[in-house]
C-alpha cells in the first residue's frame, strides 16, 4: 500500500473492479448485519408464530389488548400534540429571528438552538421537580406563597408530557424554517410588493408556500422522534399509567426478566413503529423532493425585515421569558437539586454543597462506570460508524456497480428504524440464537449504537461526497493512480470534514443516549442516561440530578469544543 512501491504505480483495471466489488459486498454486509437482520427478526417474530406460520390474527389480537391499544393511542396523541405545538412554536420563533427587527436576534437564535443539546429526559426530570402537583417548586410557590388552593399544573399528564416534549423538540422545525427563510430569494416578495400586494397577501401567497416544505419536513421529523421517544414518557407518564410504544416495550422486556415470553408484544409494537416511521420518512422525502428547487435559490440574501414597532419590546421580553422558562429554569433546578443532601429540603445556603457531585464523580462505582462506559461506547461507535458510513456513502454516491440498488434501499433503513426497535432487534439477533450471545455485555450496546447512528454518518458523508466531483477521481485514474490511491489521495482528504462531522454527530448524542441503552444495560454496563434514569427510579433524586448536571456539563463543553474546532477548520 505504500505509494512508492513499484507495483502500485501500474494501471490495473481488474484490481479496481475487484476493489469495487469488495467495497460493495462489505457495505451491504455491514448494513445487513447491523440493521437489516434485527429489523427482519422483529417482523418475523411479530408476524410468524412458533410453528413458522404467518399469523395475522395473533398480531391483531396483541394489538387489540387494552394495554397495547392504549399505548398505540397514547403514542399517537402525544406525537400529534407535540408535532402541532412544536411546529407552531418553531415557526413563530424562526420568523421572529429572521424576518423582524427583534433586538439581539443572533443571541436569540443561538439560545433557541440550545434545547437541541439538552436531553429531553433530563428536561422531564427538571419539570417533574418544578411542577409535580404537590411538591413541585412552582406549584408550591403558588400554593404556599400566593395562597392557591390547588396546584396550577399537574406535570404527570398528557398535557405535561406534550409540553416538555415541545420545549426540547421545537428546534427541529426552528432550524429548518430559519434556513428556508434565510435562503429564500427576497426578490419574489419584493416583486409582489411592487405589484401592489399587501403583507397579508404576500405572506399567504409567497412566503408560506415557499417555507411550507421546510415546516412540514421539520414537523415530520418531530413526529417521528416523538412517536419513538422513551425518556419523557418514562419519567412523567409511567407512574400514572400513561404508556407509549417505547415505554411499553421497555416494561415488557423488563418484566420478562430475560426469558423471552412477552417479547412478542414488543415485536408487534416495534413493527407498528417501523411501519409508521417508514411512512413518515416517505412523506418527508416527497415533500422535500418537491420543495428543494424552490427554496435553495443560491446565495443567502438579506431579507426585508418587518418593523415590529410597539411590539418590539414586548416580544423581546416574551422571548427572554421563554428562554428563561424553558432553558435557564430547568437547568438551574437540576444543578440546585443536585446540590441538596436529600430531596425536599429548601434551597438555603447551608443545605447546598458539592457533596453529591463529588460522590458521583469519585466515590460511586455505578456512576463512574457509567461515565466511562458512555465515553468509550461513544468513541467506539463514532469511529466505527464514521468509517463504515464513508465507505457505504461512497458506494451509493460515487460508484457505478451492479447491485447498488440493494445498497440504496438498505441505506434508507437506518433512517427509519427508531431506537427502541433497534434495541429489541439486537436482543433478538445477538442473544445466542445465532451462535453469538452478546446480551448483558457492553458489546450489544455498541452494536445497537452503530445501527442507531449509521443514519447520521450516511447523511454527513454523502453530503460531503456529493461535493467531490467525479472528474477529480477520473483525472487521478487517468494519470495512472489505482482505485485505492485515488481514494486515499483525492477523495478522503476532501471528505474529511464530512467524516469529522459524522464523528461528532454521533459521539455527542451517544453520551446522553437513553432509549437504546435502557433496554440493553446489565449491572456493569450502565450508560450515563441509564444511571440518571435508574437513580431517579430508585428514589435517589438528588444524586440523579447531580448526575444529570454532570452530563449537561459534559455535553455543553463537548459541543462548545466542537463548535470551536469546526469553526477553525472552516477558515
Amino acid at each position, binding site marked *: 500500500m505504500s505509494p512508492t512501491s513499484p507495483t502500485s504505480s501500474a494501471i490495473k483495471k481488474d484490481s479496481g473492479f475487484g476493489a469495487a466489488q469488495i467495497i460493495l459486498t462489505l457495505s451491504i454486509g455491514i448494513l445487513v448485519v447491523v440493521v437489516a437482520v434485527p429489523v427482519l427478526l422483529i417482523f418475523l417474530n411479530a408476524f410468524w408464530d412458533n410453528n413458522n406460520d404467518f399469523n395475522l390474527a395473533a398480531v391483531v389480537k396483541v394489538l387489540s389488548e387494552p394495554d397495547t391499544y392504549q399505548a398505540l393511542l397514547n403514542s399517537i396523541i402525544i406525537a400529534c400534540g407535540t408535532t402541532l405545538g412544536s411546529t407552531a412554536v418553531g415557526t413563530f420563533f424562526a420568523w421572529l429571528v429572521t424576518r423582524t427587527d427583534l433586538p439581539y436576534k443572533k443571541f436569540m437564535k443561538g439560545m433557541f438552538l440550545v434545547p437541541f443539546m439538552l436531553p429531553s429526559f433530563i428536561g422531564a426530570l427538571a419539570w417533574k421537580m418544578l411542577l409535580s402537583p404537590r411538591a413541585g417548586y412552582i406549584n408550591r410557590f403558588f400554593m404556599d406563597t400566593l395562597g392557591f388552593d390547588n396546584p396550577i399544573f399537574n406535570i404527570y399528564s398528557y398535557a405535561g408530557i406534550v409540553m416538555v416534549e415541545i420545549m426540547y423538540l421545537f428546534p427541529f422545525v426552528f432550524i429548518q424554517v430559519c434556513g428556508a427563510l434565510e435562503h429564500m430569494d427576497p426578490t419574489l416578495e419584493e416583486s409582489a410588493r411592487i405589484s401592489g400586494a399587501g403583507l397579508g397577501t404576500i405572506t399567504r401567497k409567497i412566503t408560506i408556500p415557499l417555507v411550507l416544505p421546510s415546516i412540514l419536513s421539520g414537523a415530520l421529523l418531530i413526529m417521528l422522534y416523538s412517536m419513538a421517544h422513551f425518556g419523557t414518557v418514562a419519567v412523567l407518564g409511567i407512574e400514572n399509567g400513561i404508556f407509549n410504544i417505547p415505554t411499553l416495550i421497555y416494561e415488557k422486556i423488563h418484566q420478562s*426478566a430475560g426469558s423471552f415470553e412477552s417479547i412478542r408484544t414488543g415485536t408487534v409494537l416495534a413493527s407498528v413503529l417501523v411501519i409508521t416511521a417508514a411512512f413518515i420518512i416517505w412523506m418527508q422525502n416527497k415533500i422535500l423532493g418537491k420543495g428543494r428547487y424552490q427554496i435553495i435559490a443560491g446565495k443567502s440574501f438579506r431579507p426585508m425585515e418587518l418593523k415590529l414597532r410597539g411590539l418590539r419590546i414586548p416580544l423581546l421580553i416574551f422571548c427572554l421569558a421563554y428562554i428563561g422558562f424553558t432553558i435557564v429554569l430547568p437547568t438551574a433546578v437540576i444543578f440546585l437539586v443536585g446540590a441538596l443532601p*436529600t430531596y425536599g*429540603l429548601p434551597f438555603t445556603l447551608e443545605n447546598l454543597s458539592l457533596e453529591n457531585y463529588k460522590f458521583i464523580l469519585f466515590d460511586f462505582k455505578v456512576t463512574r462506570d457509567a461515565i*466511562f462506559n458512555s465515553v468509550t461506547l461513544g468513541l467506539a461507535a463514532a469511529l466505527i460508524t464514521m468509517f463504515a458510513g464513508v465507505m457505504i456513502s461512497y458506494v451509493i454516491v460515487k460508484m457505478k456497480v451492479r447491485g447498488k440498488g440493494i445498497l440504496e434501499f438498505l441505506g434508507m433503513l437506518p433512517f427509519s428504524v427508531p431506537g427502541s426497535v433497534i434495541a429489541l432487534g439486537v436482543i433478538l439477533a445477538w442473544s445466542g440464537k445465532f451462535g453469538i*450471545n452478546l446480551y448483558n455485555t*457492553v*458489546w450489544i450496546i455498541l452494536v445497537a449504537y452503530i445501527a442507531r447512528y449509521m443514519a447520521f454518518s450516511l447523511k454527513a458523508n454523502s453530503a460531503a461526497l456529493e461535493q467531490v466531483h467525479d472528474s477529480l477521481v477520473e483525472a487521478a485514474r487517468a494519470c495512472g493512480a489505482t482505485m485505492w490511491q485515488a481514494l486515499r489521495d483525492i477523495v478522503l482528504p476532501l471528505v474529511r470534514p464530512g467524516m469529522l462531522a459524522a464523528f461528532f454527530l454521533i459521539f455527542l448524542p451517544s453520551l446522553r443516549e437513553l432509549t437504546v441503552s435502557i433496554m440493553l444495560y446489565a449491572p456493569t454496563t450502565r450508560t450515563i442516561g441509564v444511571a440518571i434514569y435508574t437513580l431517579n427510579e430508585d428514589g435517589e433524586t438528588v444524586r440523579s440530578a447531580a448526575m444529570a448536571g454532570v452530563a449537561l456539563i459534559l455535553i455543553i463543553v463537548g459541543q462548545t469544543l466542537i463548535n470551536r474546532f469546526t469553526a477553525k477548520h472552516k477558515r
Partner: protein
Amino acid sequence: MRKKLLAASLAVSLGLGLVSQASAAEKMILYTSMKESLIGAIYEKFKVKHPDVTIDYQSAGAGKLMAKIATERQAGKVLADVLWTSEVPDFYNLKKEGMLETYVPAQFGEVINPFPDHDGSFTAARLGTLGIVYNTQLVKKAPAEWDDVLKPEFNGAYGIANPALSGTAYMSISLLVKQFGWEYIEKLAANKAKIGKGSGQVVDDTASGELAGCIGVDYITIDKIKKGAKLAYVFPKEILIAPSPVAIIKGTPNLSAAKKFVDFLLTKEAQEVIASEGTLSVRNDVKVAPELPIASAEEAVKRSIKVDYKSLEDEKQTTIKKFTDILQGKK
C-alpha cells in the same frame, strides 16, 4: 460456546477495566441488590480478614440480576458465585430448579433464622424491615397503627411501591393482606392510596411532600433522615420483615471463596456494618441503629407478621394483579 462467552466476558472486563487490579489467589463474583455503600463497606472488612480473596461485585436491582442469571444460564455458564438479594421468592425458585449449593455457614447456630425450612440452600444475612414513613411537615400526629394511614391526612397521599418492580413492596403487601385481609387494601384504595415506582422513590416523594406517607424500607428511610429529610419512621405493633437471603450457586469453581464470604457475612463484624446502615442484623449481639424505632432484632421478629415464604412465590402473580386492580379501581 462456553469458551466464546468466557472470552467475550474477559474482553469486556478488560476493555472496560472492571476487573479488580489486585491478582489474589482466590476470586469470586457476587451479584447483590445491596447498596453500593453497604457492600463496599463489607468488602473492606472482608479484605482485612481474607487478603487472598478478591470479590468482583455487581450491584443492581434484583430483577436485573435475575435477568442476567437467566441469560447466563441460557448461554451455559452462570458467572455469579454468590447471590444476595431481598427477593425471597427468587431463592425458592432457584432452589426448586437445583441451582443452589447447600451450605450451612459456620456461624449459623448464632443467628436468627426466619426460614423454618432452612436446609442450607440459602441463609438470611439481613432482616429488612418495613414501616410507615411520614412527612413531619404534613403529618403532625405520628401514626401508630396500620389503620392510621386510612385517616384523611393521608387521603390521596399515601404511597406503596409497585410490587411488580420491588420485591420488598410485594412482601409488605402479602404480609398486610395476611394479617388484615384484602379489606385493608380496599380501605387503602378508598383513601386513594397510590402505587409508586420503586421502593426508593416513594420515600423520596414523601420527603418532597408529594406524598404525606408511605410504606418505607428501613435503610432507605434512615439514610434520608440522617441527611436531614423532614421524615419520621414508625413501626406499628405488627412489623413487616423481609429477610435478605444469601446463597451459593451450584457448580461454582470458586466454592471455597464463596463459602468464606458467606461465613464472613454472618460474623459480628459484617453484621455491624449492616446494622449501621439502619437495617436489622440477624445477630442478637449486634446493636440496633439508634434511628430505628425498635430495641432489638429479637423483638422485631417476635412482633413480625409470620408468613409461609414458600407460598409467597406461588401467589406472586395473582397477588400483584389483585392489588394493582384494587388500587387502580379496576377490580
